[in-house]
């Protein structure tokens, strides 16, 4: 389970990866592992009305990584409710971000992966 950004031959980087680059349409052939890097909080929210199988409250943040000088953003859960815009965070791995056995996708939990990274303020 990685935190992988994709890069196309024209140097456009996106997280998550896509079969084709969202900016130019070329295949994304290179990847960058962001999991060992820190990022900065761009914005955050604390959601109190969460769907079945999701922790409550659910603090979420959009954070920005630097990949060879290009800003690459990612969204994820925050480990704490104590977070502010501009905070530096590091990704920490979690086996299950929400309960795959509950909710609309519970009939086919194998349709996607449920593990991933939360943001932990450093």
């Amino acid at each position: 389970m990685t935190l992988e950004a994709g890069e196309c031959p024209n140097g456009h980087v996106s997280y998550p990866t896509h079969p084709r680059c969202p900016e130019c349409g070329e295949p994304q052939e290179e990847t960058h592992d962001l999991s060992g890097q820190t990022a900065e909080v761009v914005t955050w929210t604390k959601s109190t009305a969460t769907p079945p199988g999701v922790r409550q409250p659910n603090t979420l943040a959009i954070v920005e990584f630097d990949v060879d000088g290009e800003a690459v953003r990612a969204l994820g859960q925050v480990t704490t409710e104590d977070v502010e815009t501009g905070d530096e965070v590091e990704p920490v791995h979690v086996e299950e971000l929400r309960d795959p056995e509950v909710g609309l996708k519970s009939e086919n939990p194998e349709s996607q992966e449920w593990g991933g990274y939360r943001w932990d303020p450093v």
Partner: protein
Amino acid sequence: MGVAVIGASMTKFGQRDAWIRELLSQAGEECLDDADVTPKEVEHLYVSNMASGEFEGQTGVMNMLAHDLGVLPAYAERVDQTSSSGGAGIYEAWQSVASGASDMTLLVGGEKMTHKTTGEATDIIASITHPEEYKHGVTLPSFAGLTARHYLERFDAPRESLARVAVKNHKNGVDNPKAQFQKEITMEKALDSPIIADPLRLYDFCPITDGSAAMMFTTEERAKEITDEYAVVSGVAGATDTQVVHERDDPTVMGGVVESSKQAYEMAGLGPDDLDVAELHDMFTILEFLQLEGIGVADQGTAWEMAMDGATEKDGELPINTSGGLKSKGHPLGASGVAQGVEIYEQLVGEAGPRQVEADTALACNVGGFGNCVITTIMEAAE
């Protein structure tokens, strides 16, 4: 070929006992009556609906409605474009007449949602997100919270400006007998309501709603034969933006709104200064600002000033959401974009009753997902 709207209807929005079948046929029948068109004259039928399968276990709603309304053997199609299904239906209906494929096209949008819990309904809607977002439990309201915080911090906008959108749209909704809430709210109530997605509170969000709305489209030539009271679709266009919200270059710019409105203005030969009234997709209060900026009415980061100045009130410079908006009228997903069309049609033909403003040119902006897909429609009063 000029495309005209000659009739419109909507059911009462709110918590309804009726299921999707009854809601759609109720609006469809009323629209046939309003346009004074017989079922057998209808050549194309479009049904805007996002998720009747997921909400109710009912699929194939276009054929169901074609049969229930007696429009057989009309061509029938279901249009799903998430929250902008209704706007996409307007686009489809316009295309069907403009291409010459149909001389009489009925559009009906509807959704039945309130029988689900808020969590279940939120999960159905959140299923449009990318798996990398969905697994974090992100919801459309949380995108609104993330974007609102960024907007307020970056443009130094007061929290009160968002509450003003809610207060205004509730005030407008009082004059709409079809609205889910016909009830004013105070600034204090909006600002003290429970937090849903910080910094947004309960009154920054539209409700979960059942309801249906419909419009009748025909050629301008035929419209003239039938009635004096019609409106013309002079511009309509749709556009998409990234499915993954954080991948947008600027979180406060809705690319789909910018692109679709640009194309719609071009087609109509008009610009933002020509608008007399507009219905914007205020699923969340912050969206009213992002759309005012996206359609070119306000510069980036300044739409909040319009809310503070009262420029978007019913008696302001550019009345926004005279219907009450999604905020107080309600948001039955597939019906919302059609209901926006119903409101601007009624404003243009002078049938808006106590909500009436003076208007010859009107715009409706219908947003799917969190700006993932957008349809902008411009309608003008018949000359």
